[in-house]
């Protein structure tokens, strides 16, 4: 019997050696993408994934490219714990040189330490929490999209201008929601708006009747919501069930087609704000949309697709320039100044944060996210709930 | 002299049914008492009350003059009463030795530190217990002693009975309660088992036994004295021949009006 076992051992050993022999082509370079591919905000994640993929495809199609790129995609489900696992996996894999990472702030903030620990250069493509770049000074971490600070300024400015005085705040209790609550409250206080009640809710809470029943008693003119599409949809729907008439004032977290699909007509009149110009108004917006539609992806790029494309393109530029080496890429990204991109000039400050000043205001009109200025609400043709 | 076990007007009901009614019963040291009566006459209930599985609703129980009426099963075991069950309740997946050791609980050192850290001391205790168990089981069936480390699951009915009785005897109790040892066995098996029980008795002369049995042959053969129960009441008491002749008893058994 021992002979037989030895034979088995021999077979195994053989397979083992075959496996160990490294078989990687010289010109192949791996780059990564992490985003929420499943769960409530998967639409944004898939849009980002496709956009990053588009950047890679265009580069591989480009004859002048030095390397052939392979995109490694991981799912963070918009859950911090899953994101940390995914990030660890990606960072631990040595031949992944750099990555475009995270739509959800809760996941981005949870993973920065991992990227720092393993020295993987990343460019955040969607998460808006300031702390992601500003809490630490990690050379590995960069961000092409803006932070939530400016959008809350604009938000408070618009609503006070429209004459709203009393606000109730609902925010999810992840760092994303907490951040929005903090910055919006500050911005509103400056403009004399009054917050009648603040409610923290679970990121996957189902039933909000308790909070909304209390809010109903407080009778605010506006319900500000700092959170993402899934619970945004639930809260808006349950507002209606409890007969609450108030403006539903959201953040960049609900700027997605999924929000409108989830609510149908109920979405009408919802406000939301996003940093960066709308795709069609971007310098490279037309080019991007053409290429994107040419690829026939089965999801739209969504609100942050252009940023994901820009982030990945930036990474590829660096690798072309300094070669597939994490350290060199980090050094190169450190001095990105007025780099041209489809979202305009990219300039990283000493925290790796791109400065995006322009904020776009959106309102849902006839089942579409319409830029406020072009909407019938701005022209006064339609009125928001309880608008004077 | 004080009786070993003494029950005074012991009472237990289930719903409306009287399982034990005002039962008075005495067991003298060293005797073998037969507890007989038709099905549902309260024999097993008596055992369950004595061993503390059921609480007596009224009356008292005392062992060598100390009250044990409200005592829990483990207290009663430590006081020196152990039993077998009508339906064998061995731990089937465990070895013969393990099953016997379950009965040896009070003579084994149960300290955490001793068990986990003092492996040498434990080994000595283990080997001593092994010898004791082996000695005991050889009284029954030498060949069984060779199978000490095999699972009980694979054993025959009579072997299981033997193991169960060993489990009850290994702690050298003052009082042994046998609940229908002959249940589920052939006539010959029963006979051998009784022989073995008598042998054990010969080895430990001051062992007292109460036996519940349907096999009158068994009762006649091994008991010194019998108590007959019917509907939870004692209807006769005395040597087997005497109670067997008692008309009340015959009525209870044969339903003769």
């Amino acid at each position, binding site marked *: 019997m021992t002979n037989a076992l030895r034979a088995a051992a021999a077979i195994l050993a053989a397979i083992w050696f075959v496996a160990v022999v490294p078989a990687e082509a010289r010109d192949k370079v791996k780059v990564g993408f992490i985003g929420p591919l499943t769960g*409530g905000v*998967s639409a944004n994640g898939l849009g980002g994934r496709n956009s990053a993929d588009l950047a890679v495809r265009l580069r591989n199609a480009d004859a002048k490219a030095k390397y052939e790129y392979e995109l490694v995609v991981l799912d963070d489900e918009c859950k911090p714990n899953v994101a940390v696992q995914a990030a660890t996996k990606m960072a631990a894999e040595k031949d992944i040189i750099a990555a475009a990472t995270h739509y959800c702030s809760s996941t981005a903030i949870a993973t920065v330490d991992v990227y720092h620990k393993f020295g993987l250069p990343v460019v955040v493509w969607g998460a808006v929490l300031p702390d992601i770049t500003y809490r630490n000074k990690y050379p590995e971490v960069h961000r092409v999209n803006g932070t939530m600070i400016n959008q809350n300024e604009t938000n408070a400015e618009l609503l006070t201008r429209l004459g709203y005085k009393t606000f109730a705040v609902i925010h999810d209790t992840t760092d994303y929601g907490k951040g929005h609550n903090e910055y919006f409250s500050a911005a509103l206080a400056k403009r004399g708006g009054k917050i009648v009640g603040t409610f923290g809710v679970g990121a996957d809470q*189902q039933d909000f009747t*308790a909070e909304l029943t209390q809010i109903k*008693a407080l009778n605010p003119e506006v319900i500000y919501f700092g959170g993402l599409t899934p619970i945004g*949809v*639930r809260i808006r729907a349950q507002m209606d069930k409890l*007969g609450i008439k108030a403006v539903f004032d959201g953040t960049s977290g609900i700027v997605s087609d999924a929000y409108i699909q989830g609510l149908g007509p109920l979405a009408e009149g919802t406000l939301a704000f996003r940093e960066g110009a709308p795709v069609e108004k971007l310098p490279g917006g037309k080019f991007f949309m053409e290429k994107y539609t040419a690829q026939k992806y089965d999801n739209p790029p969504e609100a942050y697709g252009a940023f994901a494309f820009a982030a990945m393109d930036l990474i590829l530029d660096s690798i072309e320039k300094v070669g597939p080496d994490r350290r060199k890429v980090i050094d190169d990204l450190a001095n990105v100044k007025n780099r041209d991109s489809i979202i305009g000039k990219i300039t990283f400050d000493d925290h790796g944060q791109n400065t995006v000043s322009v904020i776009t205001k959106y309102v849902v009109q006839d089942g579409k996210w319409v830029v406020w200025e072009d909407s019938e609400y701005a022209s006064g043709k339609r009125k928001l709930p309880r608008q004077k | 002299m004080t009786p070993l076990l003494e029950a005074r007007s012991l009472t237990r009901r289930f719903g409306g049914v009287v399982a034990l009614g005002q039962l008075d019963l005495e067991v003298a040291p060293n005797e073998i008492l037969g507890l007989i009566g038709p099905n549902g006459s309260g024999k097993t209930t008596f055992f369950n009350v004595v061993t503390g599985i059921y609480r007596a609703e009224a009356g008292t129980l005392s062992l060598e003059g100390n009250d044990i009426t409200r005592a829990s099963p483990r207290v009663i075991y430590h006081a020196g009463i152990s039993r077998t*069950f009508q*339906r064998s309740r061995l731990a089937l997946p465990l070895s013969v030795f393990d099953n016997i050791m379950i009965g040896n609980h009070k003579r084994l050192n149960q300290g955490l530190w001793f068990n986990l850290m003092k492996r040498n001391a434990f080994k000595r205790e283990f080997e001593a217990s092994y010898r004791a168990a082996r000695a005991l089981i050889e009284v029954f069936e030498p060949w069984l002693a060779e199978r000490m480390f095999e699972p009980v699951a694979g054993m025959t009915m009579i072997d299981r009975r033997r193991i169960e009785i060993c489990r009850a005897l290994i702690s050298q109790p003052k009082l042994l309660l046998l609940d229908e040892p002959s249940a589920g066995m052939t006539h010959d098996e029963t006979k051998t088992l009784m022989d073995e029980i008598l042998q054990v008795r010969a080895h430990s002369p001051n062992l007292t036994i109460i036996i519940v049995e349907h096999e009158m042959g068994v009762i006649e053969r091994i008991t010194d004295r019998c108590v007959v129960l019917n509907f939870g009441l004692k209807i006769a008491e005395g040597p087997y021949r005497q109670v067997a002749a008692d008309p009340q008893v015959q009525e209870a058994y044969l339903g003769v009006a």
Partner: protein
Amino acid sequence: MDIGLLAQYIMNGLMVGMMYALVAVGFTLFFGVLDVIQFAHGDVLTVGAFTALMTFVGIRTAGVHSGSIALLAMVIVAIFATAGLGMLIARYLVLPLRAAPALNTLLITLMLGTVLRESVRLFYPQGANPKPFPALLPANSINFGNFNLRLDNAIMLAAGAAVIVGVEFLFNRTKLGLAIRAVAQDEETARTMGINFVAIVLVAFAIGSGLAAFAGVMNGFYYNEINFGMGLYLGVVGFAAAIIGGLGSIYGAILGGFLFAALQTIGTVALPFASAYKDVFAFAVIIIFMAWRPTGLIREKISERV
């Protein structure tokens, strides 16, 4: 507190309580006939809800646009499909394990729950995302101060109540109910009475699972959204409710369902902080309750043969 608010809270409580009760009745039924806990019950509910959704999509694609027809079809298809699923579970997973220790049944159904849950997540188109559930019931509503009574909620409450009354009737007024209760009382006697044990078990599982489907659809209409994980939570709550009531007792289960909802509502109203604490509160109470009444309010007799 403002009376209108109070009414609102009570209404919210009644709605969820109704769902809990419907789930709990299933648990108690299964335990009644087989002395087992069917832990996949919650996920059976999920399957029910998704079946209803599929039916809706099917009907729409078939070009039927009448809301009432869609509604009817959804409820019926969901209930029957789920009832069938319940029977399959009973026949191929629960009954075969009768000889084995109760723990194994508990585990196998727990694992089956995972299988159902994951299957919905993986094999329903984009099943990982919460699915919008159509609002087919009339949404008109009347306001009494802070209390907003919606017609659809009223209808659902009424329907739920009707179902529960129906179940009650089935159990206490029909031969079938008698048979089920007989089996629950004592299998052996039931057999000798010439009752087909297996058939009764299957029927009981069918009924229980059908109720779960109903609760699932109700949940869908109430929140206008369903997701693959909804059953796990509802299942555990239903189980808890059934236990509070005392397994094996229909009334106990219904009582338990509303008690649990009451607990949560009290939690939200009484506790100063986030309403999310209501679950911490409710489950803490359950655990304490278990220490106080290890076998529930309406005690289940434990007969130990020695």
